């Protein structure tokens, strides 16, 4: 059976860039507030592009492959990246390997990455605008197909009306 992994996904139309997810994550993991301890990071591209990014739970995750000390492995169950804190020395090859900037090296010099909070991510709980949700690639793609189709139908209807 093919296992379809879910990850914390952010809807850019809803995201306000408030970074509450970062606060909740660093509080949950380390009991303090500090964005560099957060496993999800929000950003704003001026004037109003907002998005929060966490680990995508890639198959054959590039970070795992890149790690020279075999400190990273991927959970077979939900696809999250497991960091062996004894092996990790914070070298940062994983950071370079990730296209999403989703894995970083925290202030304790250990790689940090979303672990889905045992299936109930705290960031999703606190997001004030419900921009965050658990999605798989399959559900994301399906939603994109639906909105593309809906847009097509709308455009057709509009051109019909114009006639």
């Amino acid at each position: 059976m093919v296992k379809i992994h879910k990850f914390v996904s952010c809807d850019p139309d809803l995201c306000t860039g408030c970074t509450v997810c970062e606060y909740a994550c660093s509080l949950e993991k380390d009991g303090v507030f500090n964005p560099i301890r957060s496993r999800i990071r929000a950003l704003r591209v001026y004037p109003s592009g907002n998005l929060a990014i966490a680990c995508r739970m890639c198959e054959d995750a590039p970070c795992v492959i890149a790690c020279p000390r075999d400190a990273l492995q991927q959970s077979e169950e939900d696809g999250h990246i497991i960091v062996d804190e004894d092996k990790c020395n914070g070298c940062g090859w994983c950071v370079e390997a990730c296209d999403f900037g989703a894995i970083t090296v925290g202030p304790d010099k250990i790689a940090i990455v979303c672990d889905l909070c045992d299936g109930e991510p705290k960031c999703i709980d606190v997001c004030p605008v419900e921009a965050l949700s658990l999605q798989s690639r399959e559900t994301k793609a399906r939603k994109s197909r639906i909105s593309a189709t809906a847009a097509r139908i709308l455009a057709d209807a509009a051109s019909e009306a114009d006639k």
Partner: protein
Amino acid sequence: MKGYANNILYINLRTGKTKTEPLGEEMARKFLGGAGFGIKMITDYQRPNTDAFDPENPIVYSCGTFCGMMVSGSASKWGVAAKSPQSQGLGESYSTGFFGSELRRAGYDIVVVTGKAERPSYLYLEDDSVQILDASHLWGKNNWDTEDIIKSDLGDPGVRVASIGPAGEKLVRFSAIINDRLRAAGRTGMGAVMGSKNLKAVAVRGFNDVEVADVDGFKEMALEIYEKTKGPETEKYRNLGTAANVLTLNKQAAMPTRNWQDAVFEKADKISGEASNEMYVEKIQACDSCGMRCEHVAVVREGPFKGAIGRVEYEPSYAFGSCTGVDRPDAIVRAVQLCDLYGTDALSTGVVVAFAMEAYEKGIITKEDTGGIELEFGNAEGMCDMVEKIALREDIGDLLAEGVERAAAKLGKGSEKFAMHIKGVEMTGYDVRGLKTCALGYAVSRRGADHQRHGAYGPDLGGQVDRFKAEKGRGQLVIDGEDLYSVMDSLIICKFSRRIWDYESYAKMYTLATGIPMTAEEMRRCGERISNLGKIYNLREGIGREKDTLPIRCMTDPIKSGVAKGSLVTQEELDLLLDDYYETRGWSKEGIPSDAKLKELGLESYAGYLEDLKNTDSKKKSGKKKTTKKTKRD
């Protein structure tokens, strides 16, 4: 003591020397943060009667108590205080965005900057590293470019920048400090103080943890607050935003129009929040940690103002809309953007342009003065051009850059009568002629014309009192507002979320965050203390009862139309309101806090500043008696 970074940073730009000092628990407990810190520091570190542009005039940046913490809308609130180039009294302003939390994480609660740098410079604070860097290449650049270049120079897009534009460099008296592009510490000319120090920007980057005293308790309460931000108390700000006030205030004949010649704008529907949201707002986004979101980002896609990007709020809709008679929301967005780029206070700028429009229509200034702009009310393009001329001090813009009070004094010809300011600071958008509690609030506001020191329009517009009547008891209402707002501006809690908080919850959150025991009553007392210290500062700098007044027009020209038709505030009414306010405050007739009041608030060490004033106070009284006797004899 948790929460705070427990660190004050002092920087002298002349000598290049820096030092740090612990904040200390007493300072934290008595003055909280933000406003409290700013007012306390300038009172203590500024020589009395220093000119605002004197190199030794300190400028103080401060974090709100909850900077860097998960408190909705509060994590990035920061304040700035200094002698104001407008009022030559207390200057204070507050901003948000993402700058304040970075400052706290860099490890500072307060940054005090004195001296003038030899050449254009900017500060870069990264944790323990404090650098004064060359800003020659940034001088003359607008705020948005300045931010981009600094981030690129430092090679870190995570750096946060609070900067001034060309207006601040040219000492336009109502210059703002801009951070995160769309956020401004706008009022009282703090940007000009930076300019006078050759200080282009403060850039910060911080990697320290922000710790709270009671993690579990804090978390529980923080989540409760987030739930409340989703409720009806904040709905207005989440939807239409403050621009919803356009139609509300216009209906109440409280929207100053054409430089306060009236209080009803006949084209209000065109610049309403409803209209601008529908046409131009592309995204409503949030500041750091905010569960509420209110930043209505408007983008103009076509027409003469194509490409304009700005925030839609009520106050600029008044200043660049009704007050200048302009009925185009796209022009308002452009004018706001120009203020963000050049770095002026949008509010003051609009009122200054409106003043110039009236002077133009009355023939006091001419087309020659304006550099060819036909500066009539309603001229949208002319308004935007004038904003640029003021920021760059071109043509009559050079005089207008001094603000309406100074411009009118120079122009004469009766223009003083329509210079809409209090203590040299231009009026904000509540027509106080028909809002008498609010009128008192404006008159006594410690930073000049302002609705944000007291919120006294609330009881008037909410129907709690007869808005057209001046009577005893209004003093207490204004005091309640002032002390509450002093706390809000110190913790710094976003005023848009004020309805989901009270003293009880402020105190509780404070204790959870800092570990310092605090009750609701002590919290209220902090507000009273901060309000009183602001007054002491102003008194020391020569701002007394005679400056607690209203613009001449508000006391001579009644509102012409709408439900407030015929309203104005007479001198008798104002005196009655002031007497009531001072008495309720525990101040003398001249507004000087009594020794008993100082002792009660733990401010007795400041009594020295008031000694001389008390002597003149009693002389004045005896002088008055003599005059009365003389009059009787005559």
